[in-house]
């Protein structure tokens, strides 16, 4: 996106390229059925935008399962082992102290902090991992050029076939989406 801006500064202003074909559907079942049919027709660059989470839409779009759980697991293990290791180091190496005659390596006392460290670091991994995977911060996205797209946050169910799709053809995509029951179909630019 930043690259595109610098290009625009160099070259003479031209009409922006087509981003894709946006279709609006009336409900959850309709958009799932449409996503399945569009994928069955061979399109691969398809994305859906809905105002509520729609169960089964991920599968219909062919999305791979998220890798976020692995990041969270890694965060949890880092937090737990890191803090357990830190307390061990402090009590054995850095500042050994006799507390109530207990051994320096009194692991039961380390458990609450280890647990809290696990929770804290897995929460960090979940929040920042989500931001990272979603590609935020993202100040501009072409889908907002599609007419009526504001409703994606209110009551709309949108399905977009991107122009980068090797199979993309404006007329065919438009007629397919209309045939699948879209209430409105618009081609829009970047």
């Amino acid at each position, binding site marked *: 996106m930043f690259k595109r801006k610098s290009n625009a500064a160099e070259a003479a202003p031209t009409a922006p390229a087509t981003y894709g074909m946006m279709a609006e559907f009336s409900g959850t*079942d309709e958009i799932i*059925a449409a996503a399945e049919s569009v994928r069955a027709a061979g399109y691969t660059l398809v994305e859906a935008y809905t105002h509520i989470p729609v169960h089964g839409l991920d*599968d219909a779009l062919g999305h791979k399962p998220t890798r976020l*759980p692995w990041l969270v697991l890694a965060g949890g293990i880092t937090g737990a082992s890191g803090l357990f290791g830190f307390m061990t180091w402090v009590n054995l190496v850095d500042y050994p102290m006799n507390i*109530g005659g207990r051994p320096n390596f009194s692991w039961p*006392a380390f*458990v*609450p902090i280890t647990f809290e460290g696990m929770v804290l670091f897995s929460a960090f991994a979940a929040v920042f991992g989500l931001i990272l995977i979603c590609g935020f911060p993202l100040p501009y996205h072409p889908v907002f050029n599609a007419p009526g797209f504001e409703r994606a946050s209110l009551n709309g169910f949108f399905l977009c076939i991107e122009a980068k799709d090797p199979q993309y053809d404006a007329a065919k995509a438009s007629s397919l989406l209309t045939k699948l029951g879209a209430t409105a179909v618009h081609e829009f630019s970047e």
Partner: protein
Amino acid sequence: MAEQTDNMHQTLSAIQRRATIVGGAALALTVVGIAVSSTSQVLQSYLFAFLFFFGVSAGSFFLLTLQHLTSGVWGLMIRRFTEASTLVIPWMGLFFLPIAAGVGVLYEWTHPEVIAEEAVVAAKVPYLNVPFFLARTVIYFVVWIWLVRRLRRQSIAQDNAPKSESISWRDKLAVTSGPGLAAHIMLWTLAATDWGMSLEPAWASSMYPVGWMVGQVLTNFAIWIIVLWLFTRNNFLGYDIPVDRLHDLGKFTFAFTVLWTYLNFSQYLIIWSGNVPEFTPWYYYRSNGGWQYVSIALIFGHFFLPFFLLLSRHTKRNFGVVARIAMWIVAIEVLYVFWLINPAFHHDAIQMHWTHVTAFVGVGGLWISLFLRYLKQLPILPPNDHRIPELEAQLNDHGHGHSAPVSH
């Protein structure tokens, strides 16, 4: 559906017969143990078996009332199973009789020399004495039996009422379940203190009944996952368990595994930190004489293993996998109850006696037989439960991959 029910009834009747015979024979063998071994050994073994299987029914009571109150479809999956299991509680009153007869052998607070020697125990005599102990147990059973039978009566009434009244029966069941669950928690707190904790009368922990109760609920989730798995494999139900509902039960199992660890470890940490002579012996006995290996096995087998296995969404949504994890959980729960009870009698070494096995098989066999008797009485899916339409919608939802049918 009718054919499946017939098949199921035939199979369950066959299992019931076998369970009665095996259970009866094992109990008879246990009684022989009095002559071969000693009365006190037999009573110790029997107490362990009684407390484990009473715990299964007690955990069922917790879950039965909980699902009446929360109304999730996951509860519909296990409603009739937990109901049948709670109906064994009245019989458990009979099963308590040997313990009542053996109070003087099992509980050392009945021994005058212990009272004379230990001031802490002597101070507890106004509460811990045989007549009051037995009277309390009678009260526990009276209240439990009343609640269990009331819930069953209302459940039968709902089955026979017209469908239009299913919501009003849901509310009536919830009205019994709310105070019932509160009463159950208080009853179990007192019962666990009497039957289990007072085996080591100088010791006390308010966490003890809670940690154990969480173990009972965990055992229940595990047992019903296994039972549902076996029932769907044999096509007894006539419907599939929606994978999202299986996921629910898996998530509960996971949560209760963590809760069990939290409560049991908190108890340990507090006693370890406090380092007070009255409280440390309980853990001292369980950290020496070979019991430490059982304790370590519990840390790894009751927490780390199920925790990491159930962490993944995929294991929780695969019936075969989650059922096998559930079998492990039931096995390790048996060890947990053994670890709670048995070190009280044998501080120096892990002590296993053949009567532990026969008493466990005996009480267990009769428990299974009674459970199946009540399970067969009513349809597994209560026809007028208000959640039936929701379940049907979930079962018909396969088309869009909302909830794929469970893989076996």
